[in-house]
């Protein structure tokens, strides 16, 4: 039965992928393409949809893993402060106009910010040779506050123009997706997903508690550490590719748990695929609803997803909360 569901999910993802390529402010049918349309399809829409898919995958998988590591249904990839650090670094770059690497400057800065913050949080999570979820959570929240405060400081000191640009990036900006970013993004997300999938059984055990996990043959601290690295990589990749897209990390795992159960070996890939599909859809909506303007993708994601989540919540048996 669950195999069938996975197959259905897979087909939904393919369908969404196809729609995102074809639909948009103007519909492009793959059959009859003239030069302009071919260019739009291959150099603008295709990279954009791929980036959206990568980001959604990274966020969905990270959310599932993190909710397991922290044993907390409200955990989301941004609770570790990684996104705040990334936003701070990106905003600094955008507002001060650093462009030493051309158009990949902002993603690179965001990635550095993410890894740096993730690193600090990770180090703070260690005590007595162990890697503790409560410490991780608190360190993440603390770093989040610090980075947000610094970010708000920078933005209040900048011109309105600089602030608007930084804000548009932070709200989720897929408009600058190009082929340059895809190799790095794919590599990072792939590493993260493979890493977390390889540890999915351990994650199942961790959820039961450290003693039980230990008695089942896993080294809880080591597993947690490896999973944390995978979450860090995926979240850093996602935020650096296109800013902060909320909702997916937090709620996609819950939605998928309803359909597929809580076994992480299935939940992680399901959340990843679901996240990818949702973000592709949200991006499609954001560029189609008020043409030629583009809305921030993060906003559309939450507007689409949150009501659905609330609806599921009303059905008492739906979610694991």
């Amino acid at each position: 039965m669950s195999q069938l569901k996975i197959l259905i999910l897979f087909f939904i993802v393919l369908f969404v992928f196809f729609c995102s390529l074809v639909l948009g402010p103007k519909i492009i049918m793959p059959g009859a393409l003239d030069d302009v349309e071919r260019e739009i399809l291959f150099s603008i829409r295709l990279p954009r949809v791929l980036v959206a898919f990568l980001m959604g995958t990274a966020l969905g998988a990270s959310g599932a893993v993190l909710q397991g590591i922290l044993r907390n249904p409200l955990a989301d990839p941004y609770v570790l402060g990684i996104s705040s650090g990334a936003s701070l670094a990106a905003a600094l770059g955008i507002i001060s106009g650093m462009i030493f690497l051309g158009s990949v400057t902002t993603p690179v800065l965001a990635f550095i910010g993410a890894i740096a913050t993730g690193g600090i949080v990770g180090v703070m999570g260690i005590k007595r040779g162990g890697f503790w979820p409560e410490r991780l959570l608190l360190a993440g929240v603390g770093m989040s506050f610090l980075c947000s405060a610094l970010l708000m400081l920078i933005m209040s000191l900048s011109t309105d123009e600089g602030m608007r640009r930084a804000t548009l990036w932070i709200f989720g900006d897929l408009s600058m997706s190009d082929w340059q970013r895809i190799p790095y993004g794919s590599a990072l997300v792939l590493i993260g997903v493979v890493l977390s999938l390889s540890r999915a059984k351990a994650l199942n055990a961790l959820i039961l508690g450290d003693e039980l996990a230990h008695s089942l043959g896993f080294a809880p601290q080591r597993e947690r550490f490896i999973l944390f690295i995978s979450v860090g990589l995926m979240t850093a990749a996602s935020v650096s590719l296109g800013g902060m897209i909320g909702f997916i990390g937090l709620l996609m795992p819950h939605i998928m748990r309803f359909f597929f159960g809580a076994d992480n070996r299935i939940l992680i890939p399901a959340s990843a695929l679901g996240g990818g599909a949702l973000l592709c859809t949200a991006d499609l909506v954001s560029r189609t609803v008020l043409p030629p303007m583009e809305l921030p993708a993060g906003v559309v994601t939450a507007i689409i997803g949150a009501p659905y989540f609330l609806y599921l919540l009303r059905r008492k048996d739906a979610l694991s909360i």
Partner: protein
Amino acid sequence: MKYYIIIIFLIVGAGYPAFGEPASPPKRIVSLAPSTTEILFALGLGDNIVGVTSFCDYPQAAKEKPKIGGMSNPSLESVILLKPDLVVMTTDGNPKESKERLSALKIATYVFTARRIAELPQAIREMGVSLGVPERAEALARGIESALRKRTAWDIMGRGSNSAIRKEPVLEESNRGRSETHKKVLFIVWPDPLIVAGPGSAMDDAITLLGYENIAKEAKITYPKYSLEEVIRQSPDIIAIGKGSGMDMRAVSRGILQRMSSVPAVKNGAVCYMSDSLYRLGPRIVYGIEELAECLNSRS
């Protein structure tokens, strides 16, 4: 009889401030926007200015004036400490509450309401009258109008009236400032993310006045985040890139221009880098239009 005359003079004299117009220019003026600062300097009131925003950088003398904060967040405390006779603000950039708060503190304010190029000369005239320098304002306004008339289809659009906005059919009647083929222009305010000048912006006004077509004129807001797909579809003939403060626009725009490499503007090298003269609705708008005209006419 004498007493009646004296009493009448006293009443009239006491009531004069209630007329709301200073008899002579205010001695201490605070300006809450770079554009109004420039206009005040152009009206010869530079010495009367006691406070400007931190973004007021033209003319040179403005940089040396005491600062009272930003445009969207001026520090009322700093303004009050300067004991101004008049605070000049705009509807386009200053928070609306400032006027009420300043009035509550019994500080006189003048609100500059022009947002479009068409409204500028009249707004300058009105401000000149309110500030007690009507002749200089008239001269400044005339100067702007004649400069505009030289380059564009200004006359046909009607001087200073709001009806000047969006009168495409009327442009047909004039040959001045009219490009031969009504070419398509895109004015990029910032390349990454792509923000362009849409309807209601000074750049859009300037493009239309010069007889060209702004491809972003159907957008819903003044400075929209624009779809790259749409730019490629619209194939603009000329691209103008505005200047971000302190940025090397050539370097910043390289990426976006590469992605647009199939549009005529990029293929033919019809891309010009402008200064920020069109960003402020003040006396320098004329230079901005000159610059834009230079850019568009030499590449069409």
